[in-house]
């Protein structure tokens, strides 16, 4: 049993370390793989058309080689990193790319990507910034357009039934991930924060059916663990794109448990289901606009806007929060101070980290993380 159960996490780690392997294999077999960015791309549409969704990610700590000739140095370094990888030819196996207009960097990346990389298929999906009723109606139209464009590209169409089936698969995946996140609640958590990142990142590079199988294996494996309590400080990490486990690993090596997240590559990616009782596209529009990311305007004061974070903190019994932002990211930077106010109002300490991504400042962060953990320890005493 133990042997069988070990399989899942090791496989996730392999996929995490070799992120393109499976997608390339499938591309070789004739499957079309579509690259996409951000948690706002409704990948159910890809699945419904038998396309493999592949989330484009950067490489933390890897200096850009060619991107400097195409992207200004003050551009979001995560975006620069992704583009550099694409310029290097590593993403040539993709049949197309969908770049949602979410933040300024993504919006502008589209034209640059298209002009220089000339993908066979590309789509810029306008994701409304507002959440008025009209925003949802508009977003439905945009998603329909995305679907039509993809249908023309592949030469077949997706019926309502196909969409419903795809939604079912992705909802299943979300349910499994939520179950996995439940296992972060015990003291000590049954799965570490860095393992979680590996699982999620791995899942973003393979077809959803394969991910669901993987998650089922992982759940069995993690359920069977029986760690003894070490009473480490419990942390939540909130921020944007953490597609590398090194930061969370560093925090965990410094002696904390990262038990919950509010990340683009974490809970934000899967937290909400698509309501199956709705017409498919309407359900998708509603689901994706519900994502709690600073790029979408949600009215109200900090206490209202960030209350979901308060719920996470309470339910996962977090004792401190790491607020992670990427330098040159206006949307996060404009929310960060209020987020800090909010978290502090709950009585928790916050560590604010601004990442340069390409030249990872991990070394300098170690001391800050250690000092932060000491603060928490002192409070706990």
């Amino acid at each position: 049993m133990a042997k069988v159960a070990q399989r899942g996490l090791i496989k996730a780690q392999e996929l995490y370390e070799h992120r393109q392997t499976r997608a390339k294999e499938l591309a070789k077999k004739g499957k079309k793989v579509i690259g996409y960015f951000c948690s706002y791309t409704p990948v159910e549409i890809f699945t419904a058309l038998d396309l493999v969704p592949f989330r484009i990610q950067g490489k933390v700590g890897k200096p850009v080689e060619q991107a400097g000739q195409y992207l200004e140095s003050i551009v979001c370094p995560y975006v620069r990193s992704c583009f550099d990888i694409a310029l290097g030819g590593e993403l040539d196996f993709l049949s197309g790319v969908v770049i949602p207009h979410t933040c300024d960097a993504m919006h502008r990346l589209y034209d640059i990507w298209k002009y220089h990389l000339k993908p066979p298929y590309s789509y810029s999906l306008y994701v409304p910034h507002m959440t008025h009723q009209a925003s949802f109606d508009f977003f439905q139209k945009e998603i329909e357009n995305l679907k039509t464009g993809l249908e023309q590209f592949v030469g077949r169409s997706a019926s309502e039934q196909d969409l419903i089936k795809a939604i079912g698969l992705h909802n299943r995946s979300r349910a499994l991930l939520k179950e996995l996140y439940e296992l972060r609640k015990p003291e000590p958590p049954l799965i570490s924060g860095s393992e979680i990142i590996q699982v999620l990142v791995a899942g973003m590079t393979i077809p959803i059916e394969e991910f669901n199988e993987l998650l089922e294996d992982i759940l069995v494996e993690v359920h069977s663990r029986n760690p003894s309590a070490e009473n480490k400080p419990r942390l939540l990490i909130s921020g944007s794109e953490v597609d590398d486990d090194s930061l969370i690993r560093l925090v965990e090596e410094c002696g904390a448990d990262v038990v919950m997240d509010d990340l683009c590559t974490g809970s934000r990616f899967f937290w909400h289901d698509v309501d199956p009782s709705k017409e498919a596209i309407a359900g998708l529009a509603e689901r994706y606009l519900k994502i709690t990311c600073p790029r979408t305007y949600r009215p109200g004061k900090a206490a209202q806007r960030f209350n979901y974070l308060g719920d996470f903190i309470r339910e996962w019994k977090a004792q401190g929060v790491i607020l992670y932002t990427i330098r040159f990211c206006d949307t996060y930077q404009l929310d960060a101070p209020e987020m800090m106010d909010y978290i502090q109002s709950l009585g928790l300490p916050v560590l604010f980290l601004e990442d340069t991504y390409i030249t990872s400042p991990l070394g300098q962060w170690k001391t800050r993380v250690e000092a932060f953990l000491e603060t928490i320890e002192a409070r706990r005493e």
Partner: protein
Amino acid sequence: MAEETKTEPKQKTSSAKSTESAGKIRQIVKRMYKKAQQAKEENRKIAYCMVMCNYEEILEAMDVVQVYTENYAGLCAVKREAEQYMKKAQAVGYSDVLCGYAQVGIGFDAWRHELGAMPPDAPDGGMPEPDMLLGCSMGCDPRWKWYQALGRYKDTPIYNMEVLMPPSDADFDAIRAYYVRYMAEELRGLIAFLEKQTGKKMDYDRLTSIVKQVEETRQWWRKAYELRKAIPCPMSTQDHFVIFVPHHMLLTDPMTLDFYKGLYQELKERVDNEIGVIDDEKYRLLWGVGIPPWHSMYILDYFQSFGAVFAAETAYMIPEPFEMPYDITDPVELIALRAFERNSAIQRRGKEAGGVPPLAQAHLERIKDFTIDGVVMHITRSCRAATMGQILVRNVIRDYYPRLPVMFMESDIVDVETYSEAETKNQIDTFMEMVDVYRKSHR
């Protein structure tokens, strides 16, 4: 921005050939802030606004006084008074690379909140306390997130509104209906919000006549702008960065219509008499995308010392022309359609030209129409929105005009610390040599 730089410039040369119209702006700006402060005293409703959100006419029709916060930040930068506000914003937790305008604006309001009064010696008397905050999604994220962030210091009601920018390769005819519908709904939401805040009802007839007046204003500005194609060029970019003010901030004021009529007359006279910005116009430059270095505008005059005039620019552009359809009588529908047509015009032309990215298309058009010999772009550390894509533009220009010199100047829109005069001048020296070579071989 409509200002004289507080310190410097010893080497200022442009004013002699500057237009009379541009000379009027300083007083107009002073009056604008004074009026806003008076309006506050008279308990009229004040709104913090962003330029080019398509709501100017609606606000005017509802008698809401408009205060443009981005431009107040620009004003502070021109007067070299921005730093104190930026430092304040950083002290209360905002990143030093956050949009510079937002840093100034948030710093200003954080400080006002702390003092319970206007920050001391605020340029032009300061921005009056707003009764509402009206952000919009067009252009960049800070243009609505900044107002959301002010929630930390104020309970002022907010209406953030979507203004759509269609993707460059869209099927414009296919998306028009739902893009216009969304925009119109956003505008109706704004009207409902304003009716609630002001207790007044929208007067749609008045709105219609304001929309018409604005269109006329723009036509005059556009006619004046076209005159800059003349050789020698009758007005420079230095003046453009001053004369855009009435359009962007006092669009609905009847004075503005007269101002652009006057500008047209003035430039027409110059063109008819072959009066240029400089006596011996040797080179014609394009100020490419990028908000100018408000803190050191006199550097543009340095180009002039080589005999170069900035004949056109792609920053603070005049909105694209719009034919008002006679069958649409609802002014809200009209504004929504206008926003769509305008915000997709360059995209459409770029697409027709075989997939030229819209930002680059705007440059290619001006290079051709204004007989340009070189392009200068401004990479600004704290404004990603107007910076990202500049290299793309350069790359596209290279594809179409392989030898046309392009220079990147680097500093910031507000932060003077980022700017090195000596380095910039060296760069300009080299650039002008290349421009000379280009001109000789191409004109």
